[in-house]
């Protein structure tokens, strides 16, 4: 790890100011950034901690459920009045990761195998920043890419609560990230299905499944569908074909589990 300055602002405005420094980076829970710094893959001039601001921590509301950007996975798992989301948060990493990692950090990083992006996209969440509001459909741009601008801070995430929802995660055996994860959310307006872990473009919606499930919210509705393996990731832990297969299996399981 290279030397860096550490800044712990007391307000979002101060944090935004601090992030204007050249090569400054925002620090959420540090569960991705710190390991990359240790490996010298990242060398920020300053780390601006987002964990010292009361305004960015906490879970509130019943519909939508609003989660502060610096809220840990552990707190979401314990407090969010959105059972599928709380269950998802409770399956991220291990207890140490859940005690440090934050929802804002996870969404901003947009790891293609992370869990939270699937919840945000399937729920039609609204990502609030220090500058604007971004709907999830516009937020996730590609693998490790989001609509966030330089120095923009996720202050909170607002989750509409669906009538039924469930997240099914098939573990990558080593990292225990999602080899494939599928979040299914049924709203009055229709069903949204978001898939993580599978695509080279990161989290994405499976529109054919959404259409079929909106008409008939049952696993049987998926029977005629198939997932193309084009554009899906292929690595030591699974081929694109295997991931395509798992997308359908996990979607069906999520629908069944959602009830």
């Amino acid at each position, binding site marked *: 790890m290279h030397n860096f300055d550490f800044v712990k602002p007391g307000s979002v405005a101060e944090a935004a100011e601090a992030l204007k420094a050249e090569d400054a980076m925002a620090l959420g829970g540090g569960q991705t950034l710190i390991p990359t710094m240790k490996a010298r893959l990242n060398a920020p001039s300053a780390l601006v901690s987002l964990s010292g601001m009361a305004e960015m921590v906490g879970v509130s509301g019943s519909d939508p459920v609003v989660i502060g950007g610096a809220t840990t996975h552990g707190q979401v798992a314990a407090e969010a009045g959105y059972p599928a989301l709380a269950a998802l948060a409770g399956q991220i990493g291990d207890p140490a990761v859940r005690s440090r990692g934050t929802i804002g950090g996870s969404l901003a990083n947009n790891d293609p195998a992370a869990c939270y992006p699937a919840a945000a996209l399937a729920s039609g969440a609204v990502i609030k920043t220090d500058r604007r509001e971004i709907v999830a459909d516009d937020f996730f741009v590609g693998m490790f890419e989001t609509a966030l601008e330089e120095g923009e801070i996720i202050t909170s995430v607002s989750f509409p609560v669906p009538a039924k929802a469930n997240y099914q995660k098939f573990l990558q055996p080593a990292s225990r990230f999602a080899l494939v994860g599928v979040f299914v959310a049924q709203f009055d307006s229709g069903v949204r299905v978001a898939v993580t872990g599978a695509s080279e473009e990161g989290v994405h919606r499976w529109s054919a499944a959404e259409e079929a499930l909106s008409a008939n919210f049952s696993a049987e509705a998926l029977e005629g569908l198939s997932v193309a393996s084009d554009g899906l990731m292929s690595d030591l832990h699974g081929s694109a074909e295997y991931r395509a*297969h798992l997308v359908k*299996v996990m979607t069906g399981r999520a629908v069944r589990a959602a009830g």
Partner: protein
Amino acid sequence: MPADGGIGASNKRREDVRFLTGKGRYTDDINLLGQTYVHFLRSDVAHGVLKSVDVAEAASMPGVVKIFTGEDFAEVGGVPCGWQVTDRFGEVMQEPRHPVIAHGKVRHVGEIIAAVVAESHAEARDAAEAIEVDIEDLPAVVDMRAALAEGSTKVHDDLTSNLCYDWGFVEENKEAVNAAFEAAAHVTTLELVNNRLVANPMEPRVAIGDYAPGTGDSTLYTTSQNPHVIRLLMGAFVLGIPEHKLRVVAPDVGGGFGTKIFHYAEEAFCTFAAKAVERPVKWVSSRSEAFISDAHGRDHVTKIELALDAENNFTALRTDTMANMGAYLSTFAPSVPTWLHGTLMAGNYKTPLIYVNVKAVFTNTVPVDAYRGAGRPEATYQLERVIDKAARELGVDPIALRRQNFITEFPYATPVAVEYDTGDYVATMDKLEELADLSGFEARRAEAAARGKLRGLGVNCYIEACGIAPSNLVGQLGARAGLYESATVRVNATGGVVVMTGSHSHGQGHETSFPQVIADMIGIAPDMVEIVHGDTANTPMGMGTYGSRSIAVGGSAMVRAAEKIINKAKKIAAHLMEAAEADIELKDGAFSVAGTDKSVAWGDVTLAAYVPHNYPLEDIEPGLEETAFYDPANFTYPSGAYACEVELDPETGHFTVEAFCAADDFGNIINPMIVDGQVHGGIAQGVGQSMLENCVYDSEGQLMSGSYMDYAMPRATDVPFFNVDHSCQTPCTHNPLGVKGCGEAGAIGSPPALVNAVVDALQRGGHDITHIDMPLSPSRVWQAMQG
């Protein structure tokens, strides 16, 4: 449980108190005055010509003390190999020079190109990044078959090819074996891979070199399973330091699993550099470095054939294996696929004719050497898999086929040059059938099927050779060392006992189990006995801990030394009680004269030995301290039978291990709880190998699984509660404790049981699948199910 805490008692591990409360003293806990830190610049290409290493800019950076390159070690010895295998044509193996720092070429990702010694590790690392290295890439040799092909790029230009040796065993049997195959009623053939593993002990390697200019003495603190072996190899072959000027200390060590047996370049570097800069030099491996510098394990590609007669008796066995050596020969690498593998090929069965061929191959990968079991898991896996396959082809019960072919009379001389002294394979299989509730399997399978799951049962046996080894024998087989063990038993004036053992404990619990033996022999409490190990300055020359040898060989040395102590103490007691020595008995910590009520306590005798006011000084010396070296007459042969049940999700290929049972015969047992723990750990490692762990290189020689993001270690949730039993005991006939060793059994016995279980589940589910290579990841299982 014996009330006295002696042999057979499940005493709690006394060392765990310090380990679990953070009070252990590991190598990284040692910090010396004036210490410097080294960072190794390692190759990021697998194969290339090292055209230049320019350290000029780096040398002027803050904190840099000195930078070393391959030039500095050009006149220093190479890292030695401790075993020379002779091939089937009578030629010795090809043995390349293994430089401490790469010189001329780099041959694997992770090989050291330069070493920066600085005031802090951060400064050393900063400077290492400023070193300019010019490497001309060469094609990487990764696949063993391609490495052996005509015209392949050579890993070592000065060798004739990438073939280290072509070993045949027993070469004289080859024609008879081939003839038996011609005559066979049935032949089962299986091609399989024994996957490459990274050992991953919890504590990464650490080395600190120290040099005392006043005396010229060097000291190396290192994470080793065998400090004396390191002292001998490094002192005599690399650095030219006589043993009396070199001390090697291996304090608390956080797991080894084989990979801390070997002498590594980093140890030699720190010792060498400490003298060069006249300051201590410390290296602490990161986990990332461990993946590319610790010796890896396994990595065999095998074809095995089993011949049977019309009555399903095994008539011959023939195997053909390529064993990956990596880029250089690690300390014991050549012995693993040969003498630790070929000699175990008979397994538990009376197959009369066996021929084993092994081609050891150099590739542009990290060196491969012994890993828990070392050769024996590779032998057991292929044998027990091919037997399972044969049973399915013949439509017979896999257990019945095994039972039919069991060796039942002992001693038994195998056709692969070893003689099993004792065993009872029928008893362990009987015990296993009881433990695993085999009769209840069908009901469990049906219940799983109702939930849409495929339940499978896998069973196998294993034999291993532990307690390595008779020195005269291994000398004939190419070992460049003896394999005895040593102990000094020092009795203090007030009766306490210190045992200085050449065995090393890095998780095995010697500090608990060894005192139980002494306590039993003398009749004193185990807490009156202290175990000292891991420092060449205060222990006799010992060969260290590996191959499940500590209690069988090290424990036997301790018994021999304690016997000398007791004999001398009896002389003192006889003098004190004015009785004949022959009438003296030692029981419950007191000496008595047979047939009388005369008695002196252990402590009275030990005090007399050191305060010899009333003492037979004309006959014996004062003091009570004895040393023994024990060289075993044979290997020991633990054996057992294992069963695994899995439940497989046919939609995803994912399975869970629902049950694992082990019936082991370890001979006599010193501490049953520690033995349970050893088997639990071994099975967990075997489950790791068979369903999770995989060390994979790409065609460029880049390690694809170089971190825990891609290398899957077993977790607690991956294994069930184990059901282990070691009540079947056929004591070893040739060591004084009748013990066999238990450290590796779990890792040897478990992979075939798991793979057999998954294949069983799939076949019961209607899938015509006869084999899947380890690790059986969900993706591989699913792929196999796609046909």
